[in-house]
């Protein structure tokens, strides 16, 4: 299962943590002496359900863990893979670090731009894809590499893009 299984982002007003998420956060909290340590897991739990982390969810998590919202927001904004803005149903992470750069990541990047009609940090108008650069996927032996949702691909050529994306509605 990929983390992109949810549909369109929900409204931020009146955000309520899902009961399961609440339980999961409480469970994570048990693992650490200080509740703050569960911040990252809590954010991941919320993001998994909603695709991203709306403002109100930050406050909900803060309440759940008993720490100030500023501290949760500090963690959320530090990590580039916690999304604080709505993203498409599928997030494409295109690796731009050394190995992939040497194996012509740039050609792949330009092909994505052309094919999707969007740049980095943007989402296609149909909310299907969000395109983001990522600094390493640990797939240096298979560069240029990328991830779509939870699936890692590489090496990928520009020509393979249309077929690759077909699998993600």
């Amino acid at each position, binding site marked *: 299962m990929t983390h992109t299984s949810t549909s369109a982002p929900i409204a931020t007003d009146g955000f309520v943590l899902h009961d399961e998420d609440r339980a999961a956060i409480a469970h994570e909290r048990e693992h650490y002496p*200080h509740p703050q340590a569960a911040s990252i897991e809590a954010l991941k739990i919320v993001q998994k359900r909603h695709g991203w982390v709306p*403002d109100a969810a930050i*406050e909900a998590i803060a309440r759940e863990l008993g720490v*100030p*919202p*500023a501290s949760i*927001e500090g963690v959320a*904004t*530090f990590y*580039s893979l916690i999304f604080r803005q709505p993203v498409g149903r599928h997030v494409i992470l295109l690796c731009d670090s050394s190995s992939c750069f040497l194996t012509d990541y740039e050609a792949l990047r330009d092909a994505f731009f052309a094919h999707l009609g969007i740049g980095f940090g943007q989402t296609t108008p149909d909310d299907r894809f969000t395109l983001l650069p990522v600094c390493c996927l640990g797939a240096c032996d298979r560069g240029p590499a990328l991830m779509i949702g939870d699936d890692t691909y590489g090496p990928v050529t520009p020509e393979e893009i249309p077929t690759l994306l077909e699998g993600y509605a």
Partner: protein
Amino acid sequence: MATIHVDDRDYEVDGADNLLHACLSLGLDIPYFCWHPAMGSVGACRQCAVKQYKNADDTQGMLVMSCMAPVQDDAYISIEDDEAKAFRANVIEWLMINHPHDCPVCEEGGHCHLQDMTVMTGHDSRRYRFRKRTHQNQDLGPFIGHEMNRCITCYRCVRFYQDYAGGGDLGAFGAHDNVYFGRFQEGTLESPFSGNLTEVCPTGVFTDQTHSEHYTRKWDLQFAPSVCHQCAVGCNISPGERYGDIRRIENRYNGEVNHHFLCDRGRFGYGYVNREDRPRVPEWRERQRVDAGPGAAGVVGGTISLEIDDALDRAADGMRNARRVIGIGSPRASLESNHMLRTLVGDTNFSTGIAARELELLVRMNELNTRCGLPSPSLREIESCDAVFVLGEDLINSAARMALAIRQAVNAKGEALAAERGIPSWNAEAVKTLAQEAHHPFFLATPDATELDALAEQTYHAAPDDIARLGFAVAHYIDPEAPCPEALDDATTALASRIAEALMVAQRPLVVSGGSLGTPAVLEAAGNVARALARRTRPGALSLVRREANSTGLSLLGGQSLDWALECLTSGEADGVVILENDLYARADAGQVDTALQRADCIVTLDHQRTATWDKADIGLPAASFAESDGTLVSLEGRAQRFYQVFEPSYIRPETRIRESWRWLNALKVSVERQVMTPLTLDEVTRDMAMTYPALAPAGDAGLSAAYRVHGLRLAREPHRYSGRTAMRANLDVSELRAPQDPDTPFAFSMEGYAGHAEPRREVAFAWAPGWNSPQAWNKFQDEVGGHLRAGDPGVRLLGPLPGDYDYTRTLPARFAARDDQWLAVPQARLFGGDETSARAEPIQARMAETRFTMSRGTAERLRMSPGVPLTFNLGERRLTLPVAISDAWPDGVIGVPDQSGLSLVAPEWGHLEPQEVRA
């Protein structure tokens, strides 16, 4: 001690320091940003790089961050090394890449650490030619302005706000070159210490918004060493004036008291000095007796302005015609002014202007401070205590700066743990990681939950008598000789023995109590704990919180209570009264004050505020506020400190007739006695005061005499770049008036005079040193950076412990019992609004929370009350309606009444709630 070799010179330094600290203490300049003497090192900004060599023969060396490098004996370092200089130049260039070119419109300009460091590093032209990253700013409330584009990401703000001051609503967001310091959502910064961000931030991200309203560059401000008048802690401040208004309050370093930090009430509460409605000329109020019913005003008729001589003549006439004139002093006025009043009316006719029940506590606190065997600690000493027991004080609200000191004491457990592992205390991030949430034992007994509860090992929320009982029990468990309260429940017994044990094993235990609850038993309990520790020959300290700037001083000076004074007037025993800087309506029941003042035939008031009392006076004499006068205050520590006049009000406003109260009172005395007026100076009054009251004798040496000179020079109140002096009165008169002369202090109303740091001096108007324009210039005045002023910290201590008299109080209160038809009203200190004068400042008013009656959930349920519903509470004749607030901590049967909310409650009192139908 260790020897280090810096650029081929040898220096002796403290081996426990880091290199940056050691070099700065030697007076050597190394640029830095993220390091702060009160917050230690994190090595984040990379600005303080120096070259360190293995030995004398090493020519290669390696770059180290001086703030992260421990001092080693026989270390060879170079600040001037070319590679180190180039490295530092690169670092500042990178830091400046996104920094805007907005110094001319930036409020930090002229006292900016970033400007100083940029100049020091030699970065004088920019190569970066691209777009800069920009941020959106937030509205952070009435105190703090926000301009994130200026940020250089040193992290000092969050380290102060979160780690040092315990605030949770300011955070660091984002990563790499896109970091944002602000709140999660726009809104008022919650910490009562937010104002320190303006000095902690090395650049103009956080600036003083009250200053923005009437902005002036630091070099154009006139300063004097002053003492905060907004509570009893006695923080040292440097108020800055321009055009006859106070423009900002800066922290003034006192290594024993506030060192680098102030609370927001003190920093932003100065607005009352600038109020348009202040009395500036003497006023005479025509009075017609009216025989109206109770509550009707006793005075009708007009008010006319008078010249000084006329005012003095009329006042003297009134006083001579009176059979007996009494004087009502004030704990917000100086010792000198109170002394002059006492001299004017005579010892037997002098009241301190403090309510009887409060005065009784103040006198008792002085006795405890001198006769329980434990000294009264300075804030610096509080910070080094390793176990703290607070009885009955909500310190954030009653003595905020002390609460900040206690936070440091409790958090210093981390440094103790680090020391065991060989980690130096300055290595802040390592200490923090190790400490996690380790605290020194801290116990807190208050009626309501307080902001310090989170740090406490255990809290105890109970009625004042039960708080006292806990204290007495603790004393008993320390020393079985001390009496034990009867009928203690198991939980309280267990808590008491736990606290006793923690205090016994500590190296420097601290007991804190005070007068906020108005309950003598609470004080006596703290006294018994202190005596028990002293009898067991344990070291320790006893800190007792008083309410106002000069509460301690006035209780040492002595005099009758306000109740006595009102009774004297009401009974007709006295028919004349001189009221010094005191709004009686803020201290006693309005009806009682009305009656007393109606009976008086002659009322002379001196004040700098147009208060309800002022409006009742026959003659009102415009007194100088702290900013326009000199005098001595005694802080809750028992430290007598001098404050100096910042500016002469008549220079910009020639029509003003404002004078120091002690000067008015002397003139009044001369007029009453029909003597010839001779000039009186502060030194004469202070000397006379010190000779009159043995307890205050050392206070005569608290300040500098007017004859003090450095190299034959007076001390300058204005920085040497002070501009516009010849033009600032041009709208009034094209010829330039001679600068005002100051017969009372060694300070000149001028940029001429000594303002340097090379000659040690205790009283520093403003901190400046060549190349150091920001508050970091204080480094240059200290024996070691973050230590004490080289000439000694300002103030002399009056409350040293005397040997002997360790007898325990044996009268113990019974357990608190809630009543069926009555509720115990208990005074509740409040930071914003709880102080008479700062509550008149607009920014403070904007921060004042709505006043509410606080009660427990149980009480609210019994009364069928819910939050926000108005409730009318009756205390005898007095009556007040406020909305209800519910607190889970608050004990049943007790109702919290905020200070200065209209009930003039100084001690717990039983009262009735008005029945529902009457309310409706």
